[in-house]
């Protein structure tokens, strides 16, 4: 294997740290891991119990509150991954912005355009498959009345009716 050195020799030394700095870094990384674990478990619990906590709409879609909670937690996790795991938080300020600014600008534009311009699709809703609508309504009714239609609904998602099993 031939020897290879970068053209910029100082990189060989700048990207290194001592043992003590390493210990601190590792401690911080494990801390971030625990934060990620807790946040993920919280998200799962909320997802599991969303119905019984009244965070779902009548048609079992998410309420705006629930959406904000999930998206907020996810962006929190994303922040930790990008800034700590990918070390972007330790890079030069303008590298951070060169990476984040184009992405943020584009994603805000993309979401904004979709939200603003997507109303035309409501016209198509009348052409939906009737069967699916009926089956979904039946599913919602079954979930409301606590009847175990297909045995797929966990007990927590039923309204508290004492769990009548017929």
């Amino acid at each position: 294997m031939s020897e290879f050195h970068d053209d910029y020799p100082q990189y060989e030394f700048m990207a290194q740290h001592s043992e003590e700095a390493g210990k601190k870094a590792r401690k911080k990384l494990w801390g971030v891991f625990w934060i990620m674990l807790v946040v993920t478990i919280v998200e799962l619990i909320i997802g599991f119990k969303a119905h019984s906590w009244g965070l779902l709409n009548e048609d079992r879609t998410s309420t705006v509150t629930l959406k904000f909670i999930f998206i907020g937690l996810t962006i929190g996790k994303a922040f930790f991954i990008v800034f700590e795991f990918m070390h972007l938080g330790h890079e030069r300020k303008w590298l951070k912005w060169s990476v984040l600014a184009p992405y943020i600008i584009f994603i805000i534009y993309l979401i904004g355009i979709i939200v603003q311009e997507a109303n035309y699709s409501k016209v198509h809703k009348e052409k939906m498959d009737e069967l699916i609508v009926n089956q979904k309504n039946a599913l919602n009714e079954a979930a409301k009345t606590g009847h175990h239609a297909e045995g797929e609904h966990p007990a927590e998602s039923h309204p508290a009716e004492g769990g009548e099993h017929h």
Partner: protein
Amino acid sequence: MSSHAVETDSGSAWDGGKSPFNVSYGKLFMWFFLVSDALTFSGLLCAYGFMRHKHPEVWPNPGDVFTHFPFYEGHIPLAYVGLMTLILIMSSVTMVLAVEAGHRKDRQKVIVWMLLTIIGGAMFVGSQAWEWYHFIVGTEHGALRSVFVDGKWVEQTVHGATMTVNEYGLPVFANFFFFITGFHGFHVFSGVIINLVIFINVVKGTYERRGHYEMVEKVGLYWHFVDLVWVFVFTFFYLL
């Protein structure tokens, strides 16, 4: 790890030996590639969000669809997906620990942590394949769907999912599932391969000879990006 600020004044900046943002070209390129890939996934997820909200009454509740767990006969919503998320986050942690060990030129630790990362990635790809299998095979009861057969639309009981019809909801639901999780799974798979290549190089001592472990850092960036995308896919596809 900290970035050592190399002081430049207008005179010495043109003397060479320095790089913009004080990073090597390889790392800079990886960052810009990740931005473009992030925008690709964002496009896919936005398309998914658009479709999902176009048909809110009939869109399946992911908690009802993804209820399987290996070696368990019952239905636990989203448990296996949660486990997959945990596995990928753990592999991200082991990767960043490998990078940190590389900064101390601790070759043995780099080997250990990278090996764990590769195993975690492989477990994720395997789990995703298992999810696909159960998604495609479907449930016993299936669902009644309109299927185009022999030139007519007939109502049939459909089990599982194909690209044209599925028992869970509209055809586009399965399409998005396959495409988004498949595209992401492809990234995970390629990440595992790339990690394997770099791992072999670490074992061979290439980076000891080179004097720095920056290659581990660069593939670490790619691996963390893969984890980041999964965090978003998990939220938008499985939770919301």
